[in-house]
C-alpha cells in the first residue's frame, strides 16, 4: 500500500517489495506464479475512515472505503439503511447445491464425485505414484473406493519430488 494517486502500470519497486515480503513470510512463495498485476487507486478520506452521508432527502452517499470495501460493505449498508426507510432482507437464499465443495491440495473445488476413488478419476489423477490423505489422515490406495466425501473435506494428493 503506497500513499500516492499514481494509477499507471505497477512500478518495479512496488512489485519487488511486495514479492520480497511474500517470500520473507514463507519461502514457498518463491514458487508462486504471477498470474496478473494490477494498479488501482483506493478512494480515501484523509483519515482513511469511510463516511455515510445524507445530503438531502433521497440522496445518501457512501464513500472512502479505502482498502476495506469488501470488509466494511455490510456495516456501511446497515448505516445507510438506518438513515433511510429501507428494510434489509433478513432471509437468505436457499442453500441448495448440486456439487460437493472440497479443498484439494489447498485449492477450493466443486466436484460431482462422492468417493475418494471417483474424485481422483474426475480430477484426472491416474497411476500408482501418489498418496492421499483426507482431513489429515492417510487413506491407502485400497481404501479409496469406500471413502465417502463430505462437504468441506480437505484432501491432500502427494507425489514424488526432489528432496534432501
Amino acid at each position: 500500500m503506497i500513499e500516492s494517486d499514481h494509477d499507471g502500470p505497477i512500478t518495479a519497486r512496488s512489485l519487488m517489495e511486495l514479492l520480497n515480503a511474500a517470500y520473507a513470510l514463507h519461502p514457498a512463495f518463491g514458487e508462486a506464479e504471477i498470474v496478473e498485476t494490477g494498479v488501482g487507486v483506493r478512494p480515501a478520506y484523509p483519515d482513511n475512515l469511510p463516511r455515510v452521508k445524507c445530503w438531502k432527502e433521497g440522496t445518501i452517499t457512501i464513500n472512502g472505503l479505502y482498502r476495506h470495501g469488501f470488509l466494511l460493505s455490510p456495516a456501511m449498508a446497515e448505516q445507510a439503511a438506518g438513515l433511510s426507510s429501507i428494510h434489509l432482507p433478513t432471509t437468505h437464499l436457499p442453500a441448495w447445491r448440486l456439487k460437493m465443495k472440497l479443498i484439494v491440495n489447498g485449492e477450493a473445488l466443486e466436484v460431482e464425485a462422492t468417493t475418494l476413488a471417483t474424485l481422483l478419476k474426475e480430477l484426472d489423477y491416474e497411476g500408482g505414484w501418489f498418496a492421499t490423505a483426507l482431513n489429515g489422515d492417510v487413506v491407502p490406495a485400497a481404501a479409496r473406493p469406500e471413502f465417502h466425501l463430505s462437504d468441506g473435506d480437505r484432501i491432500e494428493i502427494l507425489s514424488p519430488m526432489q528432496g534432501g
Partner: protein
Amino acid sequence: MFDLFGTKLASRLLLGTAQYPSPAILAEAVKASGTSVVTVSLRREIAGGRAGEKFWSLIRSLGVRVLPNTAGCHSVKEAVATAKMAREVFDTSWIKLEVIGNHDTLQPDVFGQVEAARILCDDGFDVFPYTTDDLVVAERLLDAGCKVLMPWCAPIGSALGPVNIMALRSLRGHFPGVPLIVDAGLGRPSHAATIMELGFDAVLLNTAVAKAADPVGMARAFSKTVDAGREAYGSGLLEPRDVAVPSTPTIGRAVFS
C-alpha cells in the same frame, strides 16, 4: 560394505536429489557420487500433471535405494502422515524423519522427533531420525526404537561443516554399535573427510553438491573424501602433539666436529 537395516550398501555417501540445475545433471551427479541411497520427498501433485511420475521414473532408472523424507513437517501428526504416504508411494519402510522446530535454523524439534520416532518405529518403519548433536536426545531416540542416528554437523544448507567436533566425537564414543550418519551442514569434501575420520559410518549431503558450479565433479570429489576419511579412520590416525618429533632416526647420525 556398510549395513543399514539388513541392506548392504557399497557407498558411505547418501545424496539428496533437490536443487540440481537439471534432472540430467542430477542423474549424472548420482552416478558420479557412487551413492547407493538417495533422499526424496513428497509434495502436492497438480491435477493432470505428471511431474511426480517423471521424477520417480528418473530415480528408479538410477538403480539406487530411496530414503523418503518428511522435510517441511512442523508437527508430529504431519510427519507421521507424510511417512505413511511415503511408504505407500515409494514402497519402502525407510523414512528420514524430520520434525522441524525452528524456521530460521531448520533445527529439529527434538521432542517431536522422539514422539514421532516412537510412533513410526512401533508401526514397523525403519526410522532415520534427523537430530542435533545432543547426546541425551540421541539416547531418547534410541529408547524410542531408532536403530540409526542422523545428527547434523551444522544447520541444513549452511555449508559450515562440523562446528562442534567434540559433540560428534562424544556421540561416536557413546554409541559404538549404532550406525551414525552426519546429515546436514556439509560444505566441502574436506568436511566429509573430517567426519569420516571421526569414525562416522556415512554422510548425507545435498546442497554442497547440487549448488556447486559443477555438481557432477563435486559429487565425485565428495565420494573420494568419504572413502579417504573412512580408510584413514580404519588405519589408525596419529594423535597430534605439541612438540616436534623427528621422523628421521637420530641413531647413527654422523658427527662432523
